[in-house]
């Protein structure tokens, strides 16, 4: 065994250490002056000195910037008296992706005999932190006990994996009474009805089930996989809804019946036609629970998972764009308010950001769109939405179908004990103990394994080497193969699955959620070519079974039959869930404060709120240029730092057609009425598409519901109302839903109190743009241009940022009139298509006030706004209400003076008025209804308020 330490030469600044000092500072610990980080490598080998030295010199240490040593004493310790050292490594069973690269690279040096590699990090804290402070630094910044621990170097060893001894594990259920079944209920997450159905099935078979059969049923019937609440029977307000999904969201798609919808709600992602030759597929997933427990790994595998959805749609799409939406508790939450077992929101935020960036950047997929929202109730249940857009030839966009005799091939990463029971974990409540019990549900992803997988699969697709493809996600092989084989049947040899380490039982192999794996159905005459292709790019592939024609799922391990279920029972045997739902609108206190005579400070406060402030710190750390297709970037304007409304890319580089991706999310409106929350989210997503120059002709929507415990009738009632709004809006806007996902049971119990997340619906929209040269950005562009408002302003501040800043929720939630909104958006699209719009920004959080300020400082040009010119839908006397109302379907539009007439002519019949002008004063000036100046703020001050909060 060898231990190698590598560190920067002492005269060079340690960027990693500097970042850590800043984080330590944020904990109000001022006794640490500098931190230096030492990389530790443990090599399980017995190497002669010259070989070890070669590895250090030519691989592990950079000769220009670093120094190394491979003997004691360690760097720090006896050498630097002033420093406190902490050494941290991954827990046994957590696979560090670096280890594989190091072993490969050592082999490239011509050295064999290194059996394994482990890495650790040693932090040298210089200064005088006391023991207590070191503990705080460890627990809040450095160590996540789920995956890491502090090591004393002399104790280090490579753990040996126990060998697995096969024994068939049958589970007694036939003779148990209901009390006896309780532990099973808990272990597998079955309902009483489900257990009864299972018992009836096995009675018929005349035997008890094997553990792996119960695992298969638990995975296949989980909320995560089948959405049993959405598909259940819900009694609501005297009526019965049989399958909420089919009677709202899918119904809209069916009735709209758009010819450009190529594959909806049947595959891993929804697919639409792009240009007759290419198709786009889009999917958004959540990875909430893993991200709560281990933010970095949880979020990274969230990206990894959703990227495999387009890859597993049709015959496989190339991932071309990522979108990420996060909901966290406010990062300035006092540590005293943190429940036991919950990570601080700042740490979750930073970890999630890093996980998404590290994985997405490494895959070479641009992250172009997203949002970040804050609310205290996301404290224990942060939401991490990851979406991926894919591109594929249109004629390969339908799901494939295997033939009996086709081989089952697993491709990509090896299978380990990762994420065992992740699906049932995802569908359960979190408790203070979750962090301790759920360690096996979290893993560190390996993006390069996934990148290699994408690279070979797209080649295999183009060569026609497989008939069907699907991803291994929640439920692992069990869900992937179980679903694929529904119409045929399958036989799987679990001992043929390549493993990361020995010691896995047949059942663990079957349900493991190890990342970076895909499953293919390969005709026997293509198998050699497929295996050769995979080998040529160092991608592992293994034949693990064969599709049959007996409609049975048969699992064996080393020749022993360990599972035998009928597909009929597996996929149709689940009893439908029955639920009660109620809904009643809550009444909140109406605000009683007067309108302040000067609204400048109020505007600064909203611009500087967590929800509205600049997210540049996050956006810059994502690669949004890779693949070379960007047309409208997430940051726009004079200094490339204004908040763009939606992103546009050119997915086919030699074509002028574009794709627009946008999102809408308004959880704060859901407190008042989830119906209008959903309607507002749809309107917001569509506004953004129109604002950047798109139109509604070919826009498809995705829904992602994140909800509390829908076993509670009021929670379920809220879900029903939101789903009904999805139907009502989609029909009028003529924007079908093509895919969606839900994550329920997002609640947390602490000290006898249950904290539910706010009802959260994310609407993601994808639109096709005929000509990217018509794109419009939101920054003001020319002095003297008139500024229009399009749309009607109402007294709609319920759930607004302005009310929140003043401590109120209110009741007047923004509503949507979809008929009028559609007409208005269509006309505005016509105007941008004719090149009449110089800048356009939608009004959302903070209303006209925030939209005008953002357009001004993004363009580096001032503006004067007159509120008395704003068209109102009802009398509003208060300047603050007009300025900060969040009424939907509104835009601020800059038009060149010479285009005014034509613009007004096209917009005829809509609510429209000139409310101001672009100026060269570098000021935002707003005049109230009475003509009095109510805001005069410099662009510098406005922008600084907006940028300061997240300048980390």
């Amino acid at each position, binding site marked *: 065994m060898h231990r190698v330490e590598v560190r920067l030469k002492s005269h060079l600044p340690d960027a990693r250490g500097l970042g850590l000092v800043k984080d330590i500072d944020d904990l109000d610990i001022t006794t640490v002056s500098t931190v230096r980080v030492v990389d530790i490598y443990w090599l399980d080998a017995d190497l002669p000195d010259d070989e070890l030295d070669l590895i250090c010199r030519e691989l592990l240490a950079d000769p220009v910037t670093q120094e190394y040593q491979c003997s004691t004493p360690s760097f720090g310790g006896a050498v630097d008296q002033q420093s406190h050292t902490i050494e941290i490594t991954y827990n046994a069973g957590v696979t560090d992706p670096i280890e594989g690269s190091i072993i490969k690279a050592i082999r490239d040096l011509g050295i064999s005999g290194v059996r394994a590699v482990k890495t650790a990090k040693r932090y040298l804290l210089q200064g005088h932190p006391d023991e207590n402070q070191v503990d705080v630094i460890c627990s809040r910044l450095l160590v996540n006990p789920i995956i890491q621990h502090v090591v004393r170097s002399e104790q280090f060893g490579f753990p040996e994996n126990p060998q697995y001894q096969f024994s068939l594990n049958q589970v007694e259920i036939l003779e148990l009474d209901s009390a006896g079944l309780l532990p099973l209920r808990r272990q597998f997450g079955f309902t009483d009805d489900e257990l009864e159905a299972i018992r009836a099935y096995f009675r018929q078979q005349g035997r008890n089930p094997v553990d792996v059969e119960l695992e298969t049923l638990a995975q296949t019937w989980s909320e995560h996989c089948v959405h049993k609440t959405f598909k259940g029977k819900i009694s609501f307000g005297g009526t019965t809804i049989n399958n909420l999904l089919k009677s709202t969201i899918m119904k809209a798609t069916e009735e709209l019946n758009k010819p450009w919808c190529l594959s909806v709600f049947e595959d891993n992602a929804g697919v639409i036609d792009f240009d007759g030759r290419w198709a786009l597929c889009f999917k958004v997933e959540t990875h909430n629970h893993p991200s709560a427990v281990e933010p970095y790994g949880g979020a990274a595998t969230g990206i990894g998972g959703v990227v495999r959805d387009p890859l597993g749609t049709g015959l496989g799409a190339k991932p071309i764009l990522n979108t990420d939406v996060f909901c966290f508790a406010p990062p300035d939450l006092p540590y005293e308010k943190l429940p036991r077992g919950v990570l601080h929101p700042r740490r979750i935020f930073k970890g999630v950001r890093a996980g998404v960036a590290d994985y997405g950047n490494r895959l070479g997929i641009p992250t172009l769109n997203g949002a970040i929202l804050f609310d205290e109730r996301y404290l224990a249940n942060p939401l991490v939405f990851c979406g991926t857009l894919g591109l594929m030839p249109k004629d390969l966009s339908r799901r494939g179908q295997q033939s009996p005799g086709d081989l089952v091939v697993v491709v990509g990463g090896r299978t380990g004990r990762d994420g065992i029971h992740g699906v049932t974990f995802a569908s359960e409540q979190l408790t203070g103990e979750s962090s301790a019990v759920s360690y096996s549900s979290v893993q560190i992803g390996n993006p390069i394994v996934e990148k290699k997988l994408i690279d070979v699969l797209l080649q295999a697709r183009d060569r026609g080497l497989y008939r069907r493809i699907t991803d291994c996600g929640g439920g692992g092989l069990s869900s992937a193969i179980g679903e694929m084989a529904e119409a045929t049947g399958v036989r799987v040899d679990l001992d043929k699955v390549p493993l990361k380490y020995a010691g896995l039982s047949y059942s663990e192999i079957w349900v493991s959620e190890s990342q970076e794996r895909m499953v293919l159905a390969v005709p026997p005459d293509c198998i050699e070519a497929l295996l050769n292709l995979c080998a040529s790019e160092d991608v592992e592939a293994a034949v693990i079974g064969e599709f049959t024609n007996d409609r049975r799922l048969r699992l064996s391990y080393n020749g022993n039959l360990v599972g035998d279920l009928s597909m009929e029972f597996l996929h149709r045997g689940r009893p439908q869930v029955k639920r009660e739902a109620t809904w009643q609108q809550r009444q909140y206190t109406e605000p009683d404060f007067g309108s302040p005579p000067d609204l400048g400070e109020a505007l600064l406060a909203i611009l500087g709120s967590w929800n509205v402030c600049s997210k540049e710190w996050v*956006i810059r750390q994502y690669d949004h240029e890779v693949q070379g297709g960007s047309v409208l970037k997430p940051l726009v304007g004079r200094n490339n730092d204004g908040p763009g409304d939606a992103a546009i890319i050119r997915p086919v580089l030699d074509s002028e057609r574009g794709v627009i991706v946008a999102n809408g999310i308004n959880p704060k409106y859901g407190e008042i009425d989830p119906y209008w929350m959903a309607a507002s989210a749809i309107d917001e997503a569509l506004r953004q598409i129109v604002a950047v120059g798109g139109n509604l002709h070919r826009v498809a929507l995705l829904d992602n519901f994140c909800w509390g415990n829908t076993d509670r009738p009021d929670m379920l009632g809220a879900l029903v109302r939101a789903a009904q709004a999805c139907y009502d809006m989609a029909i009028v806007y003529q924007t079908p839903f093509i895919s969606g996902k839900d994550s329920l049971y997002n609640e947390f119990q602490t000290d006898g109190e249950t904290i539910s997340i706010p009802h959260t619906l994310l609407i993601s929209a994808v639109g096709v743009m005929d000509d990217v040269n018509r794109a419009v950005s939101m920054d003001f562009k020319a002095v003297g241009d008139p500024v229009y408002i399009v749309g009607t302003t109402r007294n709609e501040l319920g759930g607004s940022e302005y009310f929140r800043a003043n401590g109120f929720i209110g009741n007047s939630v923004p509503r949507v009139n979809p008929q009028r909104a559609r007409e208005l958006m269509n006309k505005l699209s016509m105007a941008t298509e004719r090149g009449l719009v110089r800048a356009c920004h939608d009004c959302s959080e903070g209303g006209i006030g925030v939209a005008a300020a953002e357009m001004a400082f993004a363009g580096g040009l001032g503006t004067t706004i007159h509120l008395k010119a704003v068209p109102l839908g009802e009398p509003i006397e208060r300047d603050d209400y007009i300025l900060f109302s969040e009424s939907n379907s509104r835009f601020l539009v800059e038009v060149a003076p010479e285009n005014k007439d034509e613009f007004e002519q096209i917009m005829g019949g809509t609510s429209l008025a000139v409310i101001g002008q672009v100026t060269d004063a570098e000021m935002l000036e707003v005049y109230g209804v009475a003509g009095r100046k109510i805001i005069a703020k410099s662009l510098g001050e406005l922008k600084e308020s907006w940028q300061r909060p997240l300048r980390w």
Partner: protein
Amino acid sequence: MGRVRTLILRAPGTNCDAETMFAFQQAGAEAALVHVNQLIRREERLADYQVMVVPGGFTYGDDIAAGKVLANELRLKLGEDITRFVEDGKLILGICNGFQALVKAGFLPELKDASPRLTLTNNDSGKFECRWVYLGVHKPSPCVFTRGIDRLYLPVAHGEGKLVVLSGALTESNIALFYTDEQGDISAGYPHNPSGSAGNVAGICDSSGRVFALMPHPERHIRGTQHPQWTRLGARQYGDGFQIFRNAVEWAKNL
């Protein structure tokens, strides 16, 4: 005289290969994506090409250090082929991760350097950053790729782009590109120099001018609508980076 053949090298984790190939095709070259294993296994011959590109990405995850594992692979398994390729008067371009790999393999600043005297390491900010930068061409450099260009506006996207140079490792002619501010000042600091790179150097070449590598991505600005402010300034037909590819193809036509 046939068409210029360009080899775009792929390795596990390469991710800017498709757009780099597109840029070369637009500039009139034939371009092929070739996996590093194909060269090592002799299924493809480097000698059949006139231009080799090591594009951007995170080869082998950038594990240990950015580009390091690929650098060793190139040096140990393809070193002779690459040396011959350069001696034959052909062109090598490294972009971002390609720059990191070429430097760490010891192919830059000079192919025959005895010991490595420069490297690319973590940005001073400690962060991966994606942002647009202004670049000035160092006129005394013999660089074939930057001929006739004065200034460029290109995006960077990297976490390990800081050039660290031991004294005397770079000659005047090795310096090909500087980070500048909007006015062209080559002494501007962060964020104009996004990494804290020594001497504000953004790209270097060997003394022949035919081996060139840079941290910014010219392939991400070959047409007007890739410019971050084209909706303000109007879109030109070509982006600033396009001339680099045209220069390479023009030169290689004579090989």
